[in-house]
């Protein structure tokens, strides 16, 4: 194989140009736009002011953070449990894997609509309650943020756990079984094996899944819109609102930059905190 050629650069060039034009440039100009570049006002922080003055913005920040804080721990426990069940090689595990992976190809809008059929006033959940003689509950009432949060969390749990599952399962496949067997021979309980053998070995996969899921969780919005209309604002939903309904691209960009900044910061924090013990162990 030729050592030094221009061939790889020629092969890469189209994608690099494409990404710079349609990815690099828009990101930069989006950040500039949030500071008023290209508007009549010139360089300004007034769009940030307008964004911060909107009470819905703070509500959406609170909702987004709450959603992530409630969703992610539950989701990771569930996904790890599912992966362990698949590793146990039950009968029909191929079928289980298929059914558990299906939501991977479902959008958050679709997930919202699916769960709307369950949570809506005369939906399937209340129907089932009625069959058992219980009173229906107004699940998506705007006066009860807790119930709305619950509905959104369940819908997101249903939709996005498959991604964690797939990452964890593929990570588990790479683990040598020896360690687990050794621990078993030495008399470790299943819990000890999980806690001290499997989970530490899975850390790289878990880290990737955690970063990816957090970034994606900040991007969820259609699920809440489908379930609650505008009653349960999420950050990206606000961007959409500012852009489409209020026709203010600058403020919309400001909100988008907030999402961008939070995503980046959380990714860095995860990389730092999760990597340090591992690096120490290696020393």
């Amino acid at each position, binding site marked *: *194989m030729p050592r030094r050629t221009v061939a790889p*650069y020629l*092969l*890469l060039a*189209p*994608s*690099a140009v*494409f990404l710079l034009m*349609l*990815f690099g440039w*828009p*990101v930069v*100009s*989006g*950040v500039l736009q949030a500071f008023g570049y290209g508007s009549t006002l010139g360089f300004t922080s007034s769009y940030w002011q307008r964004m911060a003055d909107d009470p819905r913005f703070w509500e959406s920040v609170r909702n987004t953070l709450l959603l992530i804080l409630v969703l992610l721990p539950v989701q990771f426990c569930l996904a790890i*449990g599912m992966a362990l*069940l698949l590793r146990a090689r039950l009968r029909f595990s191929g079928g289980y894997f*298929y*059914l*558990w*992976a*299906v939501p*991977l*190809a*479902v*959008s958050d*809008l*679709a997930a*919202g*609509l*699916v769960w*709307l*059929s369950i949570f809506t006033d*005369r939906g*399937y959940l209340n*129907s*089932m309650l*009625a069959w058992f003689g219980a009173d229906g509950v107004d699940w998506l009432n705007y006066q009860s943020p807790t119930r709305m949060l619950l509905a959104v969390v369940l819908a997101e749990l*249903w939709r996005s756990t498959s991604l964690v599952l*797939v*990452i964890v399962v*593929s*990570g588990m*496949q790479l683990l040598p079984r020896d360690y687990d067997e050794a621990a078993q021979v030495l008399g470790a309980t299943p819990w000890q094996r999980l806690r001290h053998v499997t989970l530490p070995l899975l850390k790289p996969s878990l880290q*990737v899944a955690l970063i990816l899921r957090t970034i994606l969780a*900040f*991007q969820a919005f*259609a699920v809440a*819109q*489908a379930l609650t209309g505008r009653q349960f604002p999420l950050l990206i939903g606000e*961007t*959409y609102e500012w*852009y489409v309904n209020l026709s203010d*691209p600058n403020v*919309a*960009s400001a909100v*988008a930059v907030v*999402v*961008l900044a939070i*995503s980046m910061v959380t990714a860095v924090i995860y990389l730092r905190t999760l990597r340090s013990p591992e690096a120490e162990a290696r020393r």
Partner: protein
Amino acid sequence: MTGDTVTRAPARTGAARPLPPVDRRPLRRLRLVRTAQHLVAILITLFMAAPIYLITLAAFSSRAELNRFPKAVWPRDVSIDTLRAFLLSPGTGVLPALVNSLSVGIGTLVVSLLIGAPAGYAVARYGFRGRDAYQLFLLLTRSLPVVVLAIPLASFFLNAGLYDTTYAVVLVHSVLALPTTVLITASVFVAVPVDLEEAALVFGCTRFGAFRQVVLPMALPGVAASSIFTFVLSWNEILAAAVLTLEVRTLPAQVLVSLSESPLRYQFAGGFVLVLPALLFILLMRRYLLNMWGSTIR
């Protein structure tokens, strides 16, 4: 099975020493654990499958059934009227949106493959300066929120005369799909042995001929899997599609925009139509899912 331990019948020879009792507890515990595992697996499956069943049921229920309360969770009044009205009545704009979605999906697939596959081949086959930087750049693209792109691009496309066309949406979806396409095709090309390619070169193929006649046939299934993935990504993308278009909506964008004014039964039908392809995609992709995430995450 009776009792914890069973004493084996004394040997017929009448030898005095009975065998020690067989400890069946581990076996029973194993059975118990297995049963519990099955139970939990079934519960999880119920959680994952029931929503899909229920939305299907809702989409195939008649209007009268959907207005009834309490609803039955079994098919009581099956009809395709709701779905037909959702898909065909001109007021909902669903059929053109469906066509747009398909053409955007296929366009995205073609563009990202044309641009991404050569890059994937380069990443797989050549060591060159800047390779790590390029891969880092790809990773960055994967992790940024779409919305940061969508808004500046909207004004860009407005100036370029591409606003509210499927081309604009295809371009943005291709950007989103490109990193994954490059990484998946790279992992596919890595799996094709270099020896075969070199053998073809030795026997007088040109570099391109070797690629076309040897590498491509072997890489095709993996490339197909990556295309399905791209299509799914485009099919599910909502925000950019909604921001970049007004009339020429893709299906999810159309459903999102008409969310507030459409009746519940159309929302259910929309949910069903959006979920349906997922069942097929994952069925096709089952074998590749693990390889894909295993290879793309590193």
